[in-house]
């Protein structure tokens, strides 16, 4: 119980730090970006929107810094995130909701696939150490993870989109198809997701493989594995139930954490493929100086990570009793 409380306390503290960053960053910058922007929007937006901007940047409000800060915290806590300037007059919360649907679909499924495939390759290459898979897969995947993933995406667009014309490479679905649960639309969405998903998969799989392989190399040297061999157990049983099962814990924790990075983890892939998810929205907001939307998206991404970490901590505490006493 004390453990859970501690983690929850840390959760709140970090959340507060992120909100505070959001508050102070625009105020710390040289040549206040707000003033330039407010001048640009004056006359084009209503009094209420102007006030949202004033709260965010603390211009013309006549309040002291601490008073502004308290006001800002209150607004965030009560869900008054303001109005998007670019997607005017949609409130920020609505823009965020449509974006998150796309991101969860694309990056969510890819993250799960990368984990399963990467861990599998890791198990095989540790089991047949020095074998064919082990000689090629880990080094290749290490190199792949050093390539900027957005560039892999660009190359895919070049090869499979522009040259071979196999797959579409822009947007979440064709503009001509109507959204709905029709087969046409679903196939269309899948076609659009394939290239960005492959680009993500190739560049993220390596870390899973490497940690799994290195952990399993350690567990394979344990006495209980030797014991299992001595008992004459089937080798598939030794590999999965004895060695892999004990080696997978760090990967599982990592997986729980990476679930949190789904929301903000593929910003550049979404950018390259014009995929209408959270990351694409964030860059749109940056490009159009839509600061209310930008701040809300940053908070959303942070909260997703924090929730995942909290869950990962609790899950590890349940599955691995040793971590409880270590706290």
């Amino acid at each position: 119980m004390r453990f859970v409380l501690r983690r929850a306390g840390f959760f709140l503290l970090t959340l507060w730090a992120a909100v505070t960053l959001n508050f102070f960053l625009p105020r710390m910058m040289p040549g206040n970006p707000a003033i330039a922007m407010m001048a640009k929007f004056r006359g084009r937006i209503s009094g209420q929107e102007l006030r949202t901007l004033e709260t965010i940047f603390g211009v013309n409000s006549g309040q002291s810094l601490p008073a502004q800060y308290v006001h800002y915290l209150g607004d965030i806590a009560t869900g008054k995130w303001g109005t998007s300037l670019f997607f005017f007059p949609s409130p920020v919360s609505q823009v965020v909701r449509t974006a998150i649907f796309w991101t969860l679909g694309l990056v969510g499924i890819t993250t799960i696939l990368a984990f399963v495939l990467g861990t599998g390759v890791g198990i095989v290459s540790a089991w047949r150490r020095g074998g064919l898979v082990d000689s090629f897969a880990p080094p290749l995947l290490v190199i792949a993870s050093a390539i900027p993933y957005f560039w892999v995406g660009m190359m895919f667009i070049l090869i499979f989109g522009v040259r071979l014309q196999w797959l579409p490479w822009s947007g979440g679905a064709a503009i001509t198809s109507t959204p709905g649960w029709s087969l046409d639309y679903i196939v269309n969405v899948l076609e659009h997701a394939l290239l960005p998903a492959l680009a993500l998969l190739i560049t993220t799989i390596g870390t899973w493989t490497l940690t799994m392989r290195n952990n399993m190399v350690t567990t394979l040297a344990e006495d209980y594995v030797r014991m299992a061999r001595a008992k004459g157990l089937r080798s598939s049983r030794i590999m999965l139930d004895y060695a892999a099962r004990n080696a997978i814990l760090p990967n599982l924790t990592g997986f729980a954490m990476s679930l949190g990075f789904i929301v903000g983890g593929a910003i550049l892939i979404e950018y390259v493929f014009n995929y209408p998810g959270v990351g694409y929205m964030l860059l749109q907001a940056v490009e159009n100086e839509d600061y209310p939307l930008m701040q809300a998206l940053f908070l959303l991404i942070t909260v997703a990570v924090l929730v995942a970490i909290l869950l990962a901590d609790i899950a590890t505490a349940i599955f691995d009793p040793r971590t409880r006493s270590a706290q």
Partner: protein
Amino acid sequence: MRFLRAVRGNGKATTGAILLAIFVVLALFPGLFAHDDPTATIYPRNLGASAAHLLGTSGLGQDTFAQAVYGTRQVLLISFGAGLLATLIAAVIGVAAAYLGGFADGALNLITDVVLVIPLFPLLIVISAYVHNSGTAVLIAVLTLTGWSYTARQLRSQALSLRNRDFLAAAKVRGERAWYVIAVEILPTMVSLLVAAFLTNALYAVLFASSLQFIGLGDPNSTSWGTMLYWAQNNEALQAGYYLQAVVPGAAIALLGAAVALLNYAVDEIGNPALRPVRSRRQRTRQLRRLGRA
């Protein structure tokens, strides 16, 4: 010396080190390899590869080969600068936390954890959005301030395991100051960990800086690989068939990244003997025979 020998004996490390050395030479003496001015927009636009322009020209009429060669300098500056500074900050904070213990440890640890879990790339985007056109120094500063936490955590746990060693007790009895103990007694024992941390941080700095420049948050007039990608994207180079404009800078980033990653992979193997490649029986007998002869 031992490190050099270890690098030479490891195929991956040798490959990485040679690649990195080539990039360093390019960054130091770009004029030896490229004769065109990388910023001059004097050539016909969007040329393909030819003898006059080895890798074609950009959408603004610059020589792509010259840009790629001269761009090495900024990328290496950012990656080495941010990598070094982040590792340094991490070492001071992590080791100080472990060595001082008590309240200082609790406070430093908490700060580290908070910085660790705030998503890095979105934060970088938000900061750069406010800064507008970050140049080299700003990029190094931002990448350093956001990138030290993971290493700090690693170094703290390593330092914690050293806390009760005799040589530290001896230093304390001699009455050495805390900073002396940290800098002279503790840090030298963690050299391999520090090298690995530096390489990881340098790799992330390359990827993050290029990414920021790619989405237009760097200085669009600087000569670097990320900026080249930005202009290629702006120019719709892929769709229009000017492949070289996007392929060249990306391949350069990938090569530099691979060099650093390979070195790092090898440092892992050198630091942790259990991960070293297992020799086949034939290699082992050959080695034994060699030893017997000596």
